[in-house]
């Protein structure tokens, strides 16, 4: 029997290695695999490359991971946030590397890794600082930048529901970076609010087929986060 459900966050994160590139889903507070990030702090892997949209808020989650000196480099589109104190301090002191990638290019580079495409061309960032050092090329008289696939060793994602095959159903705007990161890593770990019986999830509601998911752990975000969906 295929059963990707594991019983603890520690089990979910077992084997993440020092130096790993870790893709982290979520956008703002929605769809953020916060329990898995806490688990990664516990787990101990260091020298990580973190790939996510923001560079962390306050002193929890990814910010805490950085503060502990466990992140060598961050690849993101938006290193600012409402409270980016940890990142800004580390960055100013030269203790963390930063690669800024336009948000859509970030998503597409990860999709490319998941889809077996080593490189593609995009008009995004053509003629800007973010295209420096990158190959550019004209198609139909317009300049495009060549961007390369960005593959993760590990992806941490969040979903609303899962079954034992690892199929994931997202809620509201909770999909965001999660489906693309799930397909872009060798080891994809999902935290979910609800485990459903196999066959309970509607085949057309499953945005991430279990083929992309290796481990699923149920967590309880509690409060408003668990209210049933209206739609």
């Amino acid at each position, binding site marked *: 029997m295929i059963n990707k459900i594991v019983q603890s966050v520690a089990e979910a994160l077992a084997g993440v290695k020092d130096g790993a590139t870790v893709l982290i889903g979520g956008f703002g507070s929605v769809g953020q695999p916060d329990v898995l990030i806490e688990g990664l702090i516990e787990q101990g892997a260091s020298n990580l490359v973190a790939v996510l949209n923001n560079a962390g808020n306050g002193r929890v989650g990814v910010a805490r991971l950085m503060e502990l000196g466990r992140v060598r480099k961050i690849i993101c589109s938006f290193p600012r946030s409402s409270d980016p104190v940890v990142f800004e301090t580390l960055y100013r002191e030269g203790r963390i590397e*930063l690669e800024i990638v336009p*948000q859509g*290019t970030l*998503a597409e580079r990860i999709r490319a890794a998941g889809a077996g495409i080593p490189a593609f061309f995009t008009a995004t960032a053509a003629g800007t600082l973010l295209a420096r050092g990158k190959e550019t090329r004209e198609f139909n008289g317009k300049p495009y930048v060549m961007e390369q696939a960005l593959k993760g060793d590990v992806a941490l994602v969040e979903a609303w529901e899962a079954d034992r095959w690892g199929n994931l159903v997202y809620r509201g705007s909770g999909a965001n*970076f999660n489906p693309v990161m799930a397909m872009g890593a060798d080891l994809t770990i999902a935290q979910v609010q609800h485990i459903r019986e196999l066959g309970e999830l509607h085949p057309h509601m499953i945005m991430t087929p279990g083929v992309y998911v290796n481990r699923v752990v149920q967590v309880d975000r509690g409060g408003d986060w668990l209210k049933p969906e209206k739609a």
Partner: protein
Amino acid sequence: MPFTRDQMAARLADDVPEGWCVNLGIGIPTMVANHVPPTREVIFQSENGVIGMGPAPAKGEEDPWLINAGKQLITMAKGASFVGHADSFAMIRGGHIDLCVLGGFEVAENGDLANWATSENDTAPAVGGAMDLAAGAKRLWVIMEHTTKDGRPKIVERCGYPLTGLACVNRVYTNLAVLDVMEGRGFVVRSLAPGVTLEEVQAKTGATLHTN
């Protein structure tokens, strides 16, 4: 009298026809949605994969799973759908967004936009989805104050700040005027705020203003 920010947003909203799919940036652009009457159907898209946002939620009706790219709580319009980030930016990059409205630091007469960094040495400038939107949307309208707080022009011959996109801006809405950016011609005045003269606007502008 120059327009207030709310009036600038209302002025822009007037020009958005029914049926367009529109992406609104953070700040003044977000205010545009409040000025499109509910009788005129416009589809508001957000980078985080929301297609069809409704008005802000009523107190007590907030759903923490529903936010926009500005991280604000939202509602879904009837007919709304969700996609992931890769598909959302495929839609943006592929030219399926009729209009994107962004804020700006500078707009140049060739349509170049600078709105993400103020120097090459910025500590960790944040680009978000601005470059994707600038390169991908069918039309890009910038909404911003006509000058900086200390009075320097933001509408210029050439951008001094690092660029967000090349020749991407089609129109600029400011507190003083609405300007079209026309290929080969530069800024063409479309309208002026009430009581504001062309001379006054020209004086606060770092590029030549044309009239039809």
